[in-house]
C-alpha cells in the first residue's frame, strides 16, 4: 500500500515537471527566435526550414541597426523623461501615501476611495482634452506633458501600493517619534521611508517600466524626430525597415535588455511588490 502510494507520488511529480518544462520551452521560444534572428545575416534569416544557429555569427546587425537611426539621441530623451518622472513619482507618491495611511484627518478614507476611481479611467478618455490643454500651453514637442503629471501624486496605483506597505508598519513607531517632538514630515523622513525601501524600490521599478514602455503618450506629444523616445524611434524603425528582420530583432533585443536586467537586479523586491498589489484587491 505504502509502495503504491509513493509510486503514485513519483508519477505525479514527473507529470508536473513534464508540463512545467514543456510550458517553459514554449514561453522561451519567442525569446530564442528573437535572439537567433538578431545574429543572422539577411540571407540565413529567410531559410526554410528555419535554422537555429547563426552561421556566420553576424553580430554587426547591432551596430548597423543602432547607427542607422539616432538611437543615442532617443536613449538620452527617454532617460531625461525617466529622470523627471521618477523624481515626481517618488516624491509625491510617498507624500500622498503617507497622508492617506499614517495621518488621521477628516474625510481621508472617503477622498482616498474617490481618487482610486482614476485607476478605472482609460488613458485615451482623458487624452484629448489634455492634449488640447498642452497645445494651448505650447507644450507640444516638449517633455512637459510626459513629465509634469507625474508630480501630482505619481499615479494612484503607486500611491495604493505604498499605502498598503505603510499600513503594515506598527503605529507605535510614529507615536514614539511624536512624543520626542517630531513633526509629521520628520516621521515620514526618519521613520517611514527607511522602513519602506523595498516598496519604494518596487515603485521605482514599475515607474521605469511604464516610462520605458509608454508609446501612446510620446506619439501624441512628440512630433519632432529630435525629441523621440526609444519606443517611438523603434516604431518608426518598423515602418522604415519592413522585411529587414535582422535589424528589427537587434533593435528589439536592445530595447528588451534594460527591463530584464532591472528585473534580475530587483527581483526580490519586485516579487514582493506584486504580491502587495494583489492583497485586498
Amino acid at each position: 500500500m505504502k509502495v503504491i502510494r509513493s509510486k503514485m507520488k513519483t508519477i505525479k511529480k514527473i507529470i508536473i515537471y513534464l508540463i512545467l518544462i514543456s510550458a517553459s520551452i514554449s514561453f522561451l521560444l519567442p525569446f530564442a527566435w528573437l535572439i537567433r534572428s538578431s545574429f543572422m545575416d539577411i540571407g540565413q534569416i529567410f531559410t526554410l526550414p528555419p535554422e537555429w544557429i547563426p552561421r556566420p555569427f553576424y553580430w554587426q546587425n547591432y551596430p548597423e541597426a543602432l547607427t542607422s537611426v539616432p538611437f543615442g539621441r532617443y536613449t538620452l530623451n527617454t532617460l531625461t523623461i525617466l529622470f523627471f518622472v521618477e523624481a515626481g513619482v517618488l516624491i509625491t507618491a510617498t507624500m500622498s501615501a503617507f497622508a492617506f495611511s499614517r495621518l488621521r484627518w477628516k474625510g481621508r478614507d472617503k477622498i482616498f476611495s474617490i481618487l482610486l476611481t482614476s485607476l478605472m479611467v482609460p488613458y485615451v478618455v482623458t487624452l484629448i482634452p489634455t492634449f488640447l490643454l498642452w497645445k494651448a500651453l505650447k507644450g507640444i514637442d516638449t517633455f512637459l506633458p510626459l513629465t509634469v503629471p507625474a508630480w501630482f501624486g505619481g499615479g494612484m496605483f503607486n500611491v495604493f501600493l505604498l499605502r498598503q506597505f505603510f499600513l503594515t508598519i506598527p503605529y507605535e513607531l510614529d507615536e514614539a517619534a511624536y512624543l520626542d517632538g517630531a513633526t509629521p514630515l520628520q516621521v515620514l523622513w526618519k521613520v517611514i521611508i527607511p522602513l519602506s525601501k523595498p516598496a519604494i524600490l518596487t515603485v521605482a521599478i514599475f515607474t521605469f517600466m511604464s516610462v520605458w514602455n509608454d508609446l501612446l503618450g510620446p506619439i501624441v506629444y512628440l512630433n519632432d524626430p529630435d525629441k523621440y523616445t526609444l519606443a517611438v524611434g523603434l516604431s518608426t524603425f518598423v515602418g522604415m525597415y519592413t522585411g529587414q528582420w535582422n535589424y528589427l530583432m537587434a533593435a528589439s533585443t536592445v530595447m528588451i535588455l534594460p527591463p530584464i536586467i532591472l528585473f534580475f537586479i530587483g527581483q526580490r523586491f519586485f516579487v514582493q511588490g506584486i504580491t502587495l498589489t494583489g492583497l485586498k484587491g
Partner: protein
Amino acid sequence: MRKLELKWGIILALPAILGFLIWNLGPMIAAFVIGFTDWSIAGTPNFVGLANYKEIFFEDFIAKKSIFVTFYFAIGSVVVSMITAFLTALLLNQKVRALPLFRTIFFLPSIVPAIANAVVWLWLFNPDFGLLNYILEVFGLSKLQWIYDEHQVIPSLILMSAWGMGYTMMIFLAGLQGIPQQLYEAVAIDGGNWWHKFRHVTIPMMTPTIFFNLVMGLISSFQAFAQPFLMTEGGPNYASMFYCYYIYKNAFDYGRMGYASALSTILFLIILVLTFLIFKTSSYWVYYEGGRSR
C-alpha cells in the same frame, strides 16, 4: 496633534488631490463637453448637439465593429490569460524544485516592452518565414495567416496576450501561497480528496484574487493600443480596430477632436457599467474571510 495631522494630511495629499482634479476629473468633464462640438484640430469648435452620437450610433459602422472587436478581444484575452495563469500558478504551488527559475521564465514575457513585443510577434506570425507556421508544419498541420486574416487576427492577438500572463500568474501564486495549510488538513481529516480540497478550499479562498485579476485584466485589455498601432493598423477589414486605436485615429489622424471625444465618453460609460456590474455580482461569488463584505 489632531490639528497638526489635519494640516499635514491635507498638505501632503494635495498633489494627489490636485492631480485627480487636473488630470482626471477635469479632462473627463471636458471630453464630455467637447463631445457635443465639431472641434477639429485646426479650427474653432461649434456646438453641434447630439450630432456626433447620432453619427456613432446610426452611420459609423466602423465604430460599432470596433466595439464588438474590443469586447471580443477583451473577454477572450482575459479568459485565456487568467486560465493559463491560474493553471501555471497551481503547478508552481506543488512544492516544485527550482521554483524561482520557473517563476522567472513565466514572468519574463510580461516585462517585454509593448513595442518590442509587437515587433517580435510580427516576425513570429509571418506567414512565410515565421516560427509559428513552421511549428504547425512540423506537427503536420496546415499553415495559418495569423494576423493577416480577418477571422484569425483576434485569436492570434489573444495568443500573444496569453504569452504575457506572467504578472497575473504572480498574483495568483501569491494568493495560493497565502492559503492557510490547516484548511487543507481539515479536508484531509474529513476524508476529502484533491478535488474536494480544490473545490472547497482553493477556489473559495482564491475568489478575491480572481476578482482583482479580472478587474485589472479587463481594464487593461480594453485599452489595447500597441497591437493595432504597430501590427495590424486595425485590419484586415477593421477586424482588429480596437476602440482606443479608433479614438486615436479620429483625434490625431483625422483631426476630429469632437467626434473622438464623443467616442471616448462612450468608452468611459462602457467601463463604468462593466465595473459596476462586476462589483455588484461580486458579493455572490467573492468570498471574504470573516463574512461577506461590500
